């Protein structure tokens, strides 16, 4: 998908969110919706202007919209807006997957074991270091997390969905 289409998709998503807020606001009393309702309408107006400008504005002004506040002052040694980092497209999905795996580990095994599994796994998969070092580093991190959060800060441990299997 082109950058142009992605931007449009983002705007449409935002429109949906604001519309949803307006719908939900109908259930509230006058005082409870006094700020969220007008704000959501304002959000729709902003997004519509953005959409129109993005699609029908002149091409030079695509990045720099109508009411831009700061013009990069190149003479003053200020860098122009950085171009979007070029990385293979699939890496982005790897990043989403990484967050998903960490979440799943936390919910299944509990917070502290997940920290160990995730860090050790990450080191191993990326071949950051040898396997025994991976385990050692991960164990050290997990031990310090346990000492800090559970022992010193009295965090209630969360044992995960597997906990009922081990009475």
């Amino acid at each position: 998908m082109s950058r142009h289409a992605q931007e449009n998709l983002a705007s449409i998503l935002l429109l949906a969110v604001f519309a949803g807020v307006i719908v939900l606001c109908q259930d509230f009393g006058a005082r409870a919706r006094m700020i969220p309702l007008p704000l959501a309408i304002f959000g729709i107006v902003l997004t519509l202007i953005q959409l129109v400008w993005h699609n029908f504005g002149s091409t030079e002004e695509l990045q720099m919209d109508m009411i831009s506040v700061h013009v990069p002052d190149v003479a003053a040694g200020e860098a122009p807006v950085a171009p979007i980092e070029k990385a293979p497209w699939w890496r982005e999905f790897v990043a989403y997957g990484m967050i998903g795996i960490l979440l799943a580990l936390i919910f299944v095994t509990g917070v502290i074991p997940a920290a160990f599994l995730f860090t050790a796994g990450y080191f191993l998969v990326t071949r950051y270091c040898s396997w025994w070092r991976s385990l050692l580093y991960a164990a050290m991190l997990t031990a310090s997390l346990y000492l800090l959060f559970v022992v010193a800060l009295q965090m209630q441990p969360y044992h995960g969905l597997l906990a009922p299997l081990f009475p």
Partner: protein
Amino acid sequence: MKETRRKLMLAGAMAPVVMSMPGRALAQAGDYYKDKIIIINVAGGASGGHTRYARLLQPYLQKHTGAREVRIVNMPGGGGLKAANHIWRAKPNGMEIFFGNASTLILASLAGSPGATFDPTKFTFLGRATSEPRVLAVGGKSAIKSIQDVQKLKRPFVYPSQGTDEDFYTMAVLSDALGFKVKAVTGYEGNADTALAVIKGDGDGHITGWSESRGPILAGDKHPVLMVTSAPSPDYPNIPIVTEFAPQAKREMVRAMATVLETHRSYIGPPGMDAQAVAAFRAALNAAMKDPGLLEESKKGNRPVAPLDGALQQKQIAELTKASASLSPVLKAAVKAIQ
């Protein structure tokens, strides 16, 4: 660690004494928690006041129940509603107990709060750790000097509040019982914020715990006009007591409100809790509250205790069901007024 072990040994040494007591049922009840783990779900964060009290009582509960461990689990959320909803659904074997502000729960339920999914009168009340009298105070410079002045006001009494907390509901009941109008101003950041509003004169008065208002009252920044309690106390001899002041027709409702407020920091079990567990916990709590060690610690840390037997509490709460018919509409109307 050492401390726990010593207490364990102590508990072990106590066990034969308890067992040799006359009466089979009592012996069984006394044994009920022996070597088990009791989980106390505290309705608040680790830094809150409930937790401080739960920790104060923890070793003494362990000693008198004979439990292997009394474990404190913090369950903050929804002003205690999360912990209450949890205990409502817990197994009634007495191994999980709620500790926190019971009055908020009862009031939230009576007012039809969307977060309360339980019937408070069906809980098993196990006894109170402490309770603090609540006081209605006006600003030190205010023209209002007494509760009669409040009743004679030609305009609504301006009441700054955080939101629908127990003091908000109390104010609603007072306004109905004593026959004056209230304009509740909700949205203040906390008790400091409402106190300042009262001192400044933005608001007429507000309700807080006695200890919280004592400083400003002594300094002349606030002036107490009414105690929302069921009985007078030597601590505040010259302030009228709501249960004596309210007109006859409204006495029952006001007394019910005072009862609710006075449940305060209590231990509560799930509905239909095992009878032996109930007897054992109540007995252990009563013994713990009389323990000289606890009394000394309570004095040293300035955390006063005010015990109330669980069985008595249960009876009072049962009577509440009758009064709730009159309380509920008043509370609901007050909530409606701020929406």
